[in-house]
């Protein structure tokens, strides 16, 4: 399933609210949580991380994974946390509205 525009950023922020992660951890986490229902290309994810970093919603620093590999770890900034709260609320609202419309039955006679 393709993602709604602008949704990926919120999902990434949400994922990072559990703690610092590197790119592959983030995508794995999203796949697990969605039961594979959300399809994000890896390029899009990495691009989203750069975008968030530029907006100073996340910071990045190099670290070492449990397997002993180097990886770029992303962490939420206070600004990122605020953005997550705001955009998540808006998105939930939006999705509720969509759900209401799309699941409405024909009016009772």
């Amino acid at each position, binding site marked *: 399933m393709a993602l709604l525009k602008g949704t990926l950023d919120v999902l990434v922020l949400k994922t990072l609210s559990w703690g610092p*992660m*590197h790119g592959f951890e983030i995508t794995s986490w999203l796949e697990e949580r969605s039961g594979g229902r959300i399809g994000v*290309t890896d*390029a899009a994810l*990495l691009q989203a991380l750069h975008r968030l970093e530029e907006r100073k919603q996340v910071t990045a620093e190099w*670290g070492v*994974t449990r*397997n002993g590999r180097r990886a770029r*770890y992303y962490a939420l900034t206070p600004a990122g946390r605020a953005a997550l709260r705001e955009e998540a609320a808006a998105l939930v609202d939006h999705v509720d509205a969509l759900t209401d419309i799309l699941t409405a039955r024909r009016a009772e006679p």
Partner: protein
Amino acid sequence: MSGTPELGRGIRAGVRRLFRLPPRTRAQADADADAELDAFLEARIEHLVARGMTPAEARAEALRRLGAPLDDVRASLQHSAERREGRRRVLDWAEAVLADVRFAARQFVRTPGFTVTAVLVLALGIGATTAIFSAVRAVVLRPLPFAQPERLYMLWESNREMGSDREVVSPPNYLDWKERVSSFADVEAYGSAPFQVTITGLGEPLVLDGVPVTGGFFSMLGVRPMLGRDFTEAETWAEATWRAGETPLLLSARTWRTVFGGEASAIGRAVELNGGHARIVGVMPEGFAFPSEAVDLWMPSGWASENREAAWYRRDQSIRPIARLAPGATPERARAELETVAAQLAREHPATNTHVGAGLSPLHAFLVGDVRTPLLILLGAVGLMLLIACANVGNLLLVRASGRRQELAVRAALGAGRGRLVRQMLAESLALASLGGAFGIALGVAGTRLLERLQPAGLLRVTTFPVDAGVVAFAVLATVTAALLFGAFPALLARRSGPGEALREGGRTGGVAPGTRRVVGGLVVAEVALATLLVLGAGLLVRSTIQLRQVDPGFDPDGVVAISINLPGSRYPGPPTIAAFYDELLARIRAIPGVESVAASSTLPLRDRGATSDFFIAGRAPDAYGTEVVRRSVTPGYFETMGVPLLAGRGFTDADTFTDRWDEPRDDRVALINAALARQYFPGQDPVGQRITTDRVPDSTSQWRTIVGVVGNERQSEIAMPAQIELIEPFGQAIDTRMHIYVRMAGGEPTRVVPAVRAIVRELDPELPLIDAVAMEDVVADSMALDRFLMLLLGAFAAVALVLALVGVYGITAQVARQRLPEFGLRMALGARARDILGLTLRRGLSLVIIGLALGVAAALTATRAMAGLLYGITPNDPTTFLTVTSLLVAAGFGASWLPARRAARLDPATTLRAE
């Protein structure tokens, strides 16, 4: 889930900012993006392999999941990373500059002593430079406020016989030049001598400074009256005035405001001018003043055209012509043409023009003339002072920076680029300079006002030095230059010292690195050299002024006051009436209690030289005439009153007078000559009894005078100029309307007699204007005003420079002493005496002083030549001055190094060792 951040490699952004480390570069950002992509793919592949895929399958799957070709993804990620870092760099930079300034401010607050000293030193340097620059700009640099001023040229006569040029011109020569030289679009002229006019009919009689100009003068300059009308071409000639029955006057805006209340009704108003009818026809624009700011009004030249062919008129050098070059004409062609015309005139009028040439100079350069050199010397001096101030602050910063080496080293070790540290240093210097500059500009404005008041009256064409945008721009430029100059040293040193070196030194000695010490030493040497140069310059001026003070003006100014009176010709038409007035005046003044003696002369020594003329001594060869003899008339008792010795013969008596047959030849005319004339024209002879006339070629109408005595030389125009030859006539036989009354008072302030004299003048003639009075001591002092002015200013700059340089010497010696304290302690413990320690410390300070002195003296040997024209009685390399100044400086330098050295030597070795 989360890994451990890698140590050392990744520095947190906050830390990065805190230590002012640079953001990542472009290449680093690209590498990061690449590495991240590779790591991501690795992780994906590893994951898939763990789920049972073969590595090849896993790799294909990973690339498929990427969603786009690998190279495209790589490029786009690199691009976004670069953009991100670029933006961050700009933001960081702005933030860092702010932080730098805040950081600098904190540093300054933490070290108030340093800050106040540095700011004061800079403010002094920048302020003084700004003030002098305002004067230079007003006088030398500002273009004349006329249309196309660069096309204007001053024309002058030269005289081969007397080897002179730039001389004043006679009206007939001017008229011929004007008519015959085609390179000039127009030539107009103004009267060269200051001309006092008395205006009556406005209540109190008023004495104003007037300048006669030819009719087209203002239109040639390209200036129009702001009110009323300009003069007309016809008004150049007296006939116009005769026809109108009155003289038209143009007022300066200042006179219009102060005398006529700035009312439009002043135009057309009739006034009495020196007893004749005159009418105000216009007002010149605000700020227009020519030839000097003292001018109150202008009147037409009013020449009588019938005089044009008279020989005496061709010798009547009384005007300054200004020419405007015709379009397309060059000054070279104009000069050639002018010289050709002068040669023609020499042939046409051999009696008057045989030796007369002509030349031209750019108007601005001509007007600025004499004051250009002194002003530029002052600007140079003040610039040197600013340099010393910069060196001084640079030194302060360096010494402070060496205390901060630990800080800088830590920052460098954390990866702060050297450029970054240099910028930090420069930000500090700039902040410091800005503070100094702000105070400096305020000081400069105050200094400018002070200069305006201190400048000798009449020295400069302008009396105000406005602090305009140009001056402020100069001050800002000086500030920034200063910041770069003194900020550069610590910044460069910060670049040079590697972090490891400084860190290894640890916090133990807190001393100065060898590199820093060399630079500080170099700066001190430069300071001493520059200060030496300045002090030598000031020393030369001081000695020159002392020499000048010892000059005997030829009269005794002590106790004598001079009072100037000018009788209007209209009410005192002939010699008898004029003589009667002055006789009565002198008699009444003589009766005032306290008056020892009183007399009058048509000249005022050192100020008003009077006219010169040719002369001929009876019995000499026809071509043995003389030129340029100063003529004046004095009343009996003048030389006694002024304390001028009678060297031979007799002085004038009341008998040397006649009131009839003025114009006829008669044989009872007498004269005195001064010693210069006697020595030059009567060597080895007795001039008494010889006859002399003021005609170059005597004829039957010549008035011969018998020389009855010789008097001492009085200096006539300048104190620094030897007395010219002089022919003195008795007032009773050479009546003049304009006389200076000299009153010698018995003790006390001589000017106290002035109110009584004024009362007498008012009784004798209530319509005479208020009269000028001046103590002769002030006249003598004023004649050295420029020298004193220069000496005071240059002396002040030199003093400041010297103090700054000595502070530098003191500072470096103290620094060395402090640094070697442990060594000294050890030495003393091992038996060295205090004297040895003293010597060790002194050596450093003194060697810098000696090197600086040597360099300064070497530079001065050449540089002071620029002052040659300003010095009296000494050469620019006057050995006495050089020796005195050098020994004084050695002594001062010794003192400045001895103080800290003594302190070091007095310390208890036990204490210093324990402190280690």
